[in-house]
């Protein structure tokens, strides 16, 4: 077994909280620049430029890209030969809490969802743990803003559903999300599994490099078709019109039951933030 100290994991999580919230993902920056070179509408161009300027200012002045520093979602892949000396989620949450505080991020977590009586806090994060083969620990922190998270959807289709209806469902989710979810979007789609795992799959899709297409040709085609349709909705950057409503559509699939076809959509705003570390 390889022992990783709780302190190492704590410090790594703290660093992820800072990095994810201050630095816009490089693939996003690249996609925004490309979109700016294509976009013709004056308002849309100014909105794209503002997003690019925002990323530069956040980096220079160490200010959160967006005031909604999200509900931190942590994906941990822990090797089967790794020994963590303390409960992993506990250590991660301690790192999130102190990392958020140290980086002047927002305390957005309400411990009492129904009564809303608690003072908003930095943590807990939502922590997903996968045990994988090996001797390493990989952690990814995705601060998920709720302007876009509120627009997530899951639909339990019949297994015989026509593919066009799945595309319609995704396009409709994007149309309904509108300006409030902060376009241009990255659209994560999860197809298969169960109701809950499809949702997780859609969220995990947001971690994929935006320039990548699915290795499965039929899934890649669906990604391409949805992107084309979404960019004809006319929502545009920040809802100001134009052709740039989404920058990428990323779909992931998983084995499912013969009786079902769960499809989940998880939208990310243009402030797509995630950071990873492997220990």
């Amino acid at each position, binding site marked *: 077994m390889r022992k990783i100290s709780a302190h190492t994991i704590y410090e790594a999580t703290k660093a992820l909280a800072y990095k994810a919230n201050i630095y816009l993902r490089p693939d996003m920056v690249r996609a925004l620049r490309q979109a700016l070179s294509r976009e013709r509408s004056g308002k849309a161009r100014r909105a794209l430029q503002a997003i690019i300027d925002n990323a530069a200012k956040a980096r220079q002045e160490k200010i959160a890209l967006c005031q909604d520093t999200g509900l931190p979602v942590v994906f941990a892949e822990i090797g089967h030969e790794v020994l963590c000396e303390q409960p992993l989620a506990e250590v991660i949450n301690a790192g999130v809490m102190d990392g958020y505080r140290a980086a002047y991020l*927002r305390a957005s977590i309400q411990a009492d969802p129904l009564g809303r009586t608690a003072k908003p806090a930095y943590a807990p994060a939502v922590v997903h743990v996968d045990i994988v083969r090996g001797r390493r620990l990989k952690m990814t922190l995705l601060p998920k803003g709720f302007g876009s998270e509120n627009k997530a959807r899951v639909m339990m289709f019949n297994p015989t559903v026509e593919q066009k209806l799945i595309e319609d469902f995704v396009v409709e989710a994007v149309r309904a999300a509108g300006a409030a979810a902060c376009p241009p979007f990255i659209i994560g789609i999860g197809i298969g599994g169960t109701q809950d795992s499809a949702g997780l799959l859609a969220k995990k899709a947001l971690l994929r490099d935006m320039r990548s297409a699915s290795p499965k040709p039929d899934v890649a085609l669906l990604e391409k078709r949805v992107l084309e349709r979404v960019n004809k909705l006319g929502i545009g950057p920040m809802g100001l019109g134009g052709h740039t409503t989404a920058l990428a559509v990323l779909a992931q699939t998983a084995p499912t039951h013969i009786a079902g076809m769960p499809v989940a959509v998880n939208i990310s705003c243009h402030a797509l933030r995630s950071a990873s570390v492997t220990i």
Partner: protein
Amino acid sequence: MIMKKLDGPLTDKAIISLRSGDEVAYSGVMYTARDQAHKRLADLIKKGKKLPVDLRGQIMYYCGPTPARPGNAIGSCGPTTAGRMDAFAPLLLKHGVQGMVAKGERSNEVRKAITQYHGIYFVTYAGCGALLQGFVKSSRVAAFPELGAEAIYELRVENFPLVVAIDARGKLMKTTAEE
């Protein structure tokens, strides 16, 4: 691009001169308020109690900022989704609020209330909280400090960039998707 200058506090005359789609540089005061602050203000109005802030002629900015780094007036401070405040906005407009700044579409009820009470709804650069931070010159907690980021902050801003999304006639900005 022609950016119109607008100074606070708002007047009916200034509001009437603005058309949906206009890009505006606003200087003056804005009060932040989001979900819980709206709920509390609405409860106080319904109970006939005095509000902690005089909102007449003021702009409500739907925003919950991050804490300020030392030496800064405020942290990241972009707009939050307007739709969640739709249930409260007509009541606040009726009680003197004149402007709203947020992101996203509004309900038909809010649009009606805007025309009825000479209001106006602006959007600003959403997801650009670091950029917008540069337009805020000072901030102080004006009410409900126990709400943290959801407290009401009084912001003094200079040339804060806005786009008119619903003007006083109830006309929508052309590119705003309608429900």
